[in-house]
């Protein structure tokens, strides 16, 4: 078994202003995803908007603490699943349940975790 990080990206402004039907569709997608993935989900979460983010960066002993996300982009990380699966095809098949993969402004990135044999 391998571990994968499934990162859900999308246009933050769109997410904040989307109509109720679209929100319901996204919710339904997550319900279907979670039902199908079952105990393959090791962790998951929906993230607060990037206006709530705090970033620490820089070198030295006291890195500067700043308001805002690490990268200022229109498309932001909105949520994640940490999954355990046999292979990439399994994760791709599961991801198709998510409504985010069908909307033009959003998408899902699948990244394998480094395998420490």
């Amino acid at each position, binding site marked *: 078994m*391998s571990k994968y990080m499934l990162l859900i990206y999308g246009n933050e402004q769109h997410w904040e202003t989307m109509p109720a039907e679209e929100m319901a569709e996204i919710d339904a997608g997550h319900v279907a995803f979670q039902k*199908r993935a079952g105990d393959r989900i090791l962790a998951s979460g929906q993230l607060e908007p990037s206006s709530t983010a705090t970033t620490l960066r820089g070198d030295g002993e006291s890195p500067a603490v700043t308001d805002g996300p690490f990268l200022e982009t229109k498309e932001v990380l909105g949520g994640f699943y940490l999954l355990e699966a046999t*292979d*990439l*095809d*399994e994760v791709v098949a599961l991801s198709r349940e998510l409504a985010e993969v069908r909307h033009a402004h959003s998408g899902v990135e699948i990244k394998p975790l480094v395998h420490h*044999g």
Partner: protein
Amino acid sequence: MSNPGDAVAAAHRAHWAGVLAATVRITRDLDTAEECVQDAYAQALRTWPSAGVPDHPAAWLRTVAGNRARDLLRRESVWRRAMPLLVEEATATAPDPQDADEPPVVADDTLRLIFTCCHPALSREARVALTLRLVCGLSTAEVARAFLVQESTMAARITRAKKKIAAARIPYRVPTAEDLPERVSAVCDVVHLVFTTGSNAPVGETLVREDLVGSAVGLARTLHRLLPVAEPAGLLALLLLIDARRATRTDDDGRPVLLEDQDRSWWDREMITEGIDLLTESLRAGPPTPYAVQAAIAAVHAEASAFEATDWSEIVSLYDVLLRLWPSPVVELNQAVAVGMRDGPKAGLAALDRLAAEPALATYRYLSAARADFLRRLGQWPEAVTAYEEALVLTDNEAERAFLTGRLAEVRRGQEA
């Protein structure tokens, strides 16, 4: 086959993919499997001359490569590799409980290898490189030459792709029935791209790169043999119907010869017959695919006894069908040329002018060349000169440049006369 060296070369062409695919099942690692298969062929070169060519070369090679793989695995088990092993059929579980016992649609080692190399999670150029290296058995240097990049660049591209297969765990498996149509399309796309790169080389000294064309036709044959469904049948039909004209597509100096000037008695009739049979098979197997429609267009040309006898109305309507399945400015351009052939150069020019605003065609070498040809037929010399000059600027293929330069000289003479 009396010469053992020839026998090894023939076994390389015929069995490389099958032997590698079987060995990957043992090593579950592409690099190690490749090494073992190379060793097996090297051993064949050493021993076949004295011991004689075995009755079943493929089985012999599989056994030797397999033994080598088991040896290596025993020795390497001390240092367990950092990269995860390929995911195989036996250990894989389907995402849905009710699918868990579903048997694979097609089980064949070579197919597994093809589907892994052409996985949609790899970039298109990586798919092509991996397929040529692992399925067709071309050396990295040969693959690099085919795409005119440095060998080190190609080696890096192949290594990166293999690393992604291992790290992201792209499975070594034939897809499930649900995914199969999409995945077959991805494989057909790679094979078609290898063929078009080979038969209309965008750069270089020759128009046709026979190594690539040969690899593409071989791949299409394998695919069709293992998966005799509509799309591979249509693809193989298309490749055969176009490749049947190979002997006449260039002259003795390697310059392109236009369809209308080709000596049709040199077209390969056997390939044409096979292509038309496959086209029929493809159309019976399901709704028409873009490859089948293109094959049908090639078949209309193949069946015309002379260029003048071409059924251009049929071709124009086949392009209508193709545009519905596969809307593309390049297809529109080809249709405009066919309209010109059916209704005369004036109509063709008008059809081309409607496409001139298409951004995707603005720098497309065949648009200028097609305009130039209609202008030449109409005797509009100054405009023809400009169009040929434009086409020359956009063309990097030496053989095509030589052809266009010849035509440019011809219309300049017309202008002066």
